[in-house]
């Protein structure tokens, strides 16, 4: 039995082989059981069984698949079946090397999935190989994720004013008071320290960063000059339509913050429709300005979105019927999504980091979490680094440029 389940010892295997050699009926049965095992291993997922549910797909995957299927169907209608793919004759898809995705319209043509993969390739590969940590003094070793009372950071003998996003340099000396707990975001993950403790920031780096760092790790822990130098915006702009910041892509919130680029004196009508069940009444609200807390709309308060859903959000400038005054985006809710309230000041940066480290990347959730930071921290370097990632991936060129400029200005200072 252990031989079939793959956990037999060498001795058990040898004994079993001996038994098989002496007993043709046993060998026959064993070979048939192996055939049954391999048949199930390969084709089991095709069988309809109630307990098996496919994993959810990201919006990017849905879009990529729709694009591929639409092309096939067009080609089927126009020319009949296309020739079989030949790997020898056709070059592999070449992903665009940029942190910045193409704007929505062009993504439809080029494949949003490809752009996302490109960003990961760039950030995880190109940037790391070309700009491996230079360990300069200004490269963050860690970030504070919340500030417990009494926590002190000293740099070059001076006490620093600390916030929930403070970037710590390797030589910073940190004092966590007795009974307090502090969390630090490092390239290797989240590190917790309980007081009383006094240590240098470099001691937080207890594990090596992963060989293939996530995009968030790269953006947060590479020297700023390297991040800025590598993130060359592609041509094209997200100018058409309204720039929605969140919800975008995948979200872990069933009551997501709705945040878009507003214009003074204008209001917008919002509609969210369930793409999996057209019988679900849409969520509608009119004449709103950004941001809209989901639970602040009376009619929505008791109607959170559903987990594992695919939704379309439509933003239309109130009273403007022009097709250019409306924009649609689709987003998915994760199977693990919850209705937890908006992040507090203290946990906002941590939540943004978690969204940036998730798979799939929750780009809209990064921006939603950063929006919960106090105004003075929203444009501080750590938040801007994460915004750079989110704006770039979402193709929000103007916002990306603005964030990059603010970071460059900071570098120059």
């Amino acid at each position, binding site marked *: 039995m252990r031989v079939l389940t793959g956990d037999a010892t060498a001795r058990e295997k040898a004994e079993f082989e001996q038994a098989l050699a002496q007993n043709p009926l046993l060998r026959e049965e064993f070979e*048939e059981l192996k055939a049954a095992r391999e048949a199930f291993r390969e084709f089991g997922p095709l069988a309809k069984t109630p307990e098996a549910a496919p994993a959810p797909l990201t919006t990017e995957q849905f879009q990529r698949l729709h694009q591929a299927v639409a092309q096939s169907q067009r080609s089927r209608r126009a020319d009949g079946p296309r020739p079989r793919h030949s790997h020898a004759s056709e070059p592999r898809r070449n992903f665009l090397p940029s942190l910045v995705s193409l704007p929505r319209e062009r993504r439809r043509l080029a494949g949003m999935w490809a752009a996302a993969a490109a960003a990961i390739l760039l950030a995880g590969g190109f940037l790391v190989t070309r700009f491996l940590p230079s360990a300069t003094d200004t490269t963050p070793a860690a970030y504070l994720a919340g500030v417990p009372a009494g926590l002190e950071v000293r740099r070059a003998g001076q006490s620093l004013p600390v916030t929930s996003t403070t970037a710590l340099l390797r030589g910073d000396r940190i004092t966590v008071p007795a009974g307090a707990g502090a969390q630090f975001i490092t390239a290797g993950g989240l590190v917790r320290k309980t007081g009383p403790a006094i240590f240098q920031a470099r001691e937080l780096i207890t594990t090596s960063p992963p060989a293939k760092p996530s995009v968030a790790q790269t953006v947060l822990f590479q020297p700023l000059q390297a991040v800025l130098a590598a993130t060359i915006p592609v041509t094209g702009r997200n100018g058409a339509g309204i720039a929605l910041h969140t919800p975008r892509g995948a979200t872990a919130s069933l009551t997501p913050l709705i945040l878009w680029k507003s214009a003074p004196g204008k209001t917008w009508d919002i509609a969210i429709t369930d793409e999996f069940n057209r019988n679900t009444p849409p969520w509608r609200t009119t004449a709103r300005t950004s941001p809209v807390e989901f639970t602040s709309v009376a009619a929505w308060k008791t109607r959170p979105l559903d987990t594992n859903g695919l939704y379309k959000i439509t933003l239309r400038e109130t009273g403007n019927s022009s097709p250019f005054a409306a924009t649609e985006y689709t987003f998915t809710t994760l199977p693990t999504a919850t209705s937890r309230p908006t992040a507090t000041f203290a946990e906002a940066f941590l939540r943004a980091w978690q969204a940036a480290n998730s798979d799939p990347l929750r780009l809209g959730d990064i921006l939603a979490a950063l929006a919960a930071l106090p105004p003075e921290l929203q444009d501080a370097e750590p938040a801007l680094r994460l915004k750079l990632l989110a704006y770039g991936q979402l193709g929000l060129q103007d916002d990306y440029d603005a964030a990059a400029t603010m970071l460059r200005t900071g570098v120059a200072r």
Partner: protein
Amino acid sequence: MSEDTIHLESLQAGEQAAWTRAFPALMEIALHAARHPAIGLSESDAQEEAVRAISELAEQIGTVTTRNHLMALLTKITSNNAVSCARHNRAGIRDERKTESLEQRQADAGDAGEPPPPLAASLTALEITDLVKLIERALAGVSERDRRLLREHLLEGKTPAELACAHGLTAEGVRSAILRTLRKLRLALKNNPRLMNEIRDHLRY
């Protein structure tokens, strides 16, 4: 997987909503075929091949007769493309003077007790359809717990010890349950001697 995510007629009619509903199930099937350990594709190549296979399936959707036929055809397309991709990739490492044929890799894998090469390469789409029907019939008479144990062991790679811990059983109990289910599958396969022989021949190769 839930039966209502695949509506063949709507897919054949090119209804976008039907494709949207079907994509998770189709992607899972295609990825499973592309990730066959004996083929050895990287995850990004497997994802790429899965999408490509679904797009080819869309071209051939008019020829599909049943849901199981659709799944079988998708598996067949993915498997063929994945093997082709793996050959292409291996041809590309000649520069490193580390030429390795897929057959050699599969032979090595077989010696090491690793999974054999994909069965989908040896079976036709219709044979796969029959095999899936046969698996479904056999599993219909198995308890949900035993189906889960088999699935988690063979498809998710969990060991009997891990499953014992997760399901509150002994490792021996898990092995017995897996063997019990495999025996039911074996009996079902024996009712289709042609398929049984095909699979056994394939495993000998």
